[in-house]
């Protein structure tokens, strides 16, 4: 029998929609359901609701409302940012710089762009997962039109030197896009002072609804339309607006950045305690990512001699939801490209576990999860041939 207790520690995968957010969305389904493009009052109400949500998203990242464009999620924002600017700037050049540790929404879009004749440079990262400014500077050519570096990595939680990159790109007259899907609500963001030209975000990562997102496009940036059709989103992104979703996105981001410091320091404390317990109580494990430049809720740890998917299954059995970068769970049978990029040996990368804490986690969760991880790791090691060899070698 599986456990009755449940502890969710996979907030980087998705979050529960905040019940207050759901409440904010509800009126827009069956009562104020007007199509914002129509001209009667019912429609006008929807239009106003969208404008309010747009203002909230803008405020959260230091942008102006008319720089915010609603999309169906982080993936669409990333696709649009890259494809839309690549094609509209190809008169200037065909070179794009990104990193080896981006989300697949960036990496696979870059592969697509490569097929369309663009040159892509994938910057390496240091052992903690950070881009080195020297590498970026060295990669820039006079054909470089766009730099896309994520704000914070979804697997290891490393925060990139976004301000520095923004400054450099602005000086060089190169567009700078950042995938901030994991950063919103966790790290202070200001697109103006950080010199960000385009920024992607996704509602369901900060207690908002799935299927909602936005792309910030700095005023004056040339970008092709992404969806062709009606005149919505200043003709840049057609389609009847997802009014409840947009309202929910606005409500969620407003709440996410309110008291952000308080909330993140509480989560960081819990995270640090959990991390400390794991590292001291379980031998042969190591933390991946950066010690301090790290998302407050993120733990990414490798346990030697065991495999991540089986660890997840045991944890799931104990009611704990977590994630891994192991090949066996990915279906593609390749271990996490992020762990590879920071130089984790392939056999160790196999045993990686990602725990991402969020607002609803408690002290109790920390105790429960650390105990269960200890038990699970022991159990898997007891049947691992690698562990048996290790013990023999030691004795």
């Amino acid at each position, binding site marked *: 029998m599986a456990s009755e207790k449940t502890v969710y520690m996979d907030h*980087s*995968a*998705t979050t529960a929609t905040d019940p207050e957010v759901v409440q904010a969305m509800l009126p827009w389904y069956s009562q104020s359901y007007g199509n914002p493009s129509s001209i009667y009052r019912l429609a006008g109400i929807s239009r106003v609701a969208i404008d309010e949500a747009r203002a909230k998203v803008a405020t959260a990242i230091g942008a102006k409302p008319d720089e915010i464009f609603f999309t169906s999620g982080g993936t669409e924002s990333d696709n649009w940012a890259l494809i839309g600017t690549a094609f509209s700037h190809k008169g200037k050049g065909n070179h794009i710089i990104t990193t080896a540790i981006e989300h*697949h929404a960036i990496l696979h879009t870059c592969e697509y762009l490569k097929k369309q004749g663009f040159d892509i440079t994938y910057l390496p990262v240091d052992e903690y997962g950070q881009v080195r400014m020297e590498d970026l500077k060295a990669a820039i050519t006079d054909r470089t039109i766009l730099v896309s570096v994520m704000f914070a990595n*979804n697997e290891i939680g490393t925060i990139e030197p976004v301000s520095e990159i923004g400054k450099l790109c602005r000086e060089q007259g190169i567009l700078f896009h950042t995938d901030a899907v994991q950063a919103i609500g966790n790290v202070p963001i200001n697109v103006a002072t950080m010199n960000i030209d385009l920024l992607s975000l996704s509602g369901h990562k900060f207690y908002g609804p799935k299927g909602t997102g936005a792309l910030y496009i700095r005023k004056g940036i040339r970008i092709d339309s992404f969806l062709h059709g009606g005149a919505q989103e200043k003709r840049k992104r057609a389609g009847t607006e997802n009014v409840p979703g947009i309202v929910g996105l606005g409500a969620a981001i407003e709440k996410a950045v309110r008291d952000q410091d308080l909330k993140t320091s509480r989560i960081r404390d819990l995270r640090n305690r959990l991390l400390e317990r794991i590292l001291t109580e379980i031998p042969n494990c190591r933390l991946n990512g950066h010690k301090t430049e790290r998302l407050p809720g993120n733990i990414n740890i490798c346990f030697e*001699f*065991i*495999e991540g*998917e*089986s660890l997840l*299954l*045991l944890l799931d*059995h104990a009611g704990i939801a977590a*994630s891994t970068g*192991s*090949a*066996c*769970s*990915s*279906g*593609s*049978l*390749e*271990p996490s490209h992020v762990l590879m990029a920071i130089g984790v040996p*392939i*056999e160790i990368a*196999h045993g990686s576990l990602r725990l991402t804490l969020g607002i609803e986690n408690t002290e109790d969760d920390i105790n429960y999860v650390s105990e269960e991880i200890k038990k699970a790791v022991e159990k898997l090691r*007891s*049947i*691992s*041939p*690698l562990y*048996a060899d290790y013990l023999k070698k030691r004795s």
Partner: protein
Amino acid sequence: MYSEKVMDHFMNPRNQGEIPDADGVGEVGNPSCGDIMRIFIKVKDNIITDVKFQTFGCGAAIASSSMATELIKGKTLEEAWEMSNKAVVEALEGLPPVKVHCSVLAEDGIHQAINDYRIKQGLSPWEEKAGHAHGHDDESGE
């Protein structure tokens, strides 16, 4: 994602461990995902009297090891050799398509253990039949 049978064998693996004085040992690595399985057999009068495994791998790999060892225990070497990964998958009430290759590991491990035994006995190893799948499919997306 996994059947109840798989979960049962994963949670409570049968025949896990090591046989220090094994008559045959097989060790195989999965070329596609890098996992490792070790099979130990004891043989008496051409019958596998005991079998144990150690596995470093996913839930399917561990469950397949457990099931495969159950299936060959008490069988003749010929019968054990003939046991295919398909039989393991069937006994487990199915595996997700991306996980079928994990059961191949078990079949290969047993073959190696048997041949290890045969070589130690001064017999020539049996030959592998050609062609089983190491297919990949979907990748998860979050």
